[in-house]
């Protein structure tokens, strides 16, 4: 199993939290942009949760989900009419986001698992 969490990911989240905590949306955006170089555009599915739960990418980015749990999960995004096949352990699913927007998605097998991909122009 490959650990696909980007190395700088934790640090990025810290920055975000501090910036948002101060109510400074502009700073948050800048902080995210500055750190995107290290962002592998991967989302891990682990312990029935998407990590990161919120991923921000630019239009045209391919995002890949990898299931690290023992049981199956899937990716369902109603807005995009997107429905992955069931992902067994270590299976991955990729999708290229072609349009800016906020895309909420869930696990089709366990719909209480929720995530969001924010696609910026």
């Amino acid at each position, binding site marked *: 199993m490959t650990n696909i969490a980007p190395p700088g990911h934790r640090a990025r989240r810290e920055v975000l939290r501090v910036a948002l905590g101060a109510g400074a949306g502009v700073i948050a955006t800048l902080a995210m942009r500055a750190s995107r170089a290290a962002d592998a555009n991967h989302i891990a599915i682990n312990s029935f949760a998407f990590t990161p739960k919120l991923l921000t990418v630019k239009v045209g980015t391919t995002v890949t989900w990898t299931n690290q749990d023992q049981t199956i999960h899937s990716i369902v995004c109603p807005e995009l009419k997107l429905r992955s096949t069931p992902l067994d352990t270590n299976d991955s699913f990729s999708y290229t986001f072609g349009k800016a927007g906020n895309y909420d998605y869930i696990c089709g097998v366990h719909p*209480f698992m929720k995530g969001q991909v924010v696609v910026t122009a």
Partner: protein
Amino acid sequence: MSIDSSGTDRRHFLKCMTWAGTAAVWSVAGGIPRGRLIDSAEAATDGFHFVQISDSHLGFDKAANPHTTDTLKEALNGVMALPQRPAFMIHTGDISHLSKPVQFDTGAQLMGATKLTVHTVPGEHDILAENGKSYLNRFGKGSKGDGWYSFDAGGVHFIGLVNVVNQGDNGLGNLGHEQLEWLEDDTEHLSASTPIVVMAHIPLWIVYKDWGWGTADGAQALSYLKRFGSVTVLNGHIHQVLQKVEGHVAFHTARSTAFPQPAPGAAKAPGPMAVPPGDLRHYLGIAKVSLVSSNAPLAIVDTPLAG
């Protein structure tokens, strides 16, 4: 049983609902049906009985149980070893892990080898492919909609419900309008003294909302059944025995034949729970459900594959 106001927390309450080797029994005294829990010796009966197995997850081969075909075989051997041959067997869903034809075929073959009639309801793992057609083609003959049906046996009216299609985004099970309408029609001509058995994969009552362990519109289904003196609801999905008696309704979830899951809220997330290899068979098992003849109660005895 109820949650008392003296600080009993959810974990404690659910633990109280868990008994192995006990049975929920109905009896009618002075015209008032009462549900109660008895031990397995008291539930022994020569009368009408059937067997419930659940959550076989054929095709699952991860650490929690790399040998799910073998443990299903063991469970079926347990069924065949019962002193009296059951009238039939029910499987309350997740026959397969990935809805693959080979997984369904293995399940059909192994269950078929018992020569017992098998009544099934689908789990969410059984409808992952082709909108559930792989499941329906093999197990859904004579059913309606997504696979619901009813039949009568031993003086009991059996209802198989499907609550794994169009689950809401809270993850709870869903029956849907069409099926609820059917249920109302299906039961309205029955006499209130007819014992009712409802089978569905996800628990019909809310066991643990955070993990989607419950059915969003389950209460509406139960409202159609409230006039009946004996209603027994048999579920799977959560891979552990939970029993509850509420009013005229006894709820019961069966063990899996494949792997256990954590007790509600006892872990960060649900999912296959690895236990020491020697302990696995304590967590897997079958349930025998009996109609005690004199006053139409049903008794459920859960038996692990290893005591």
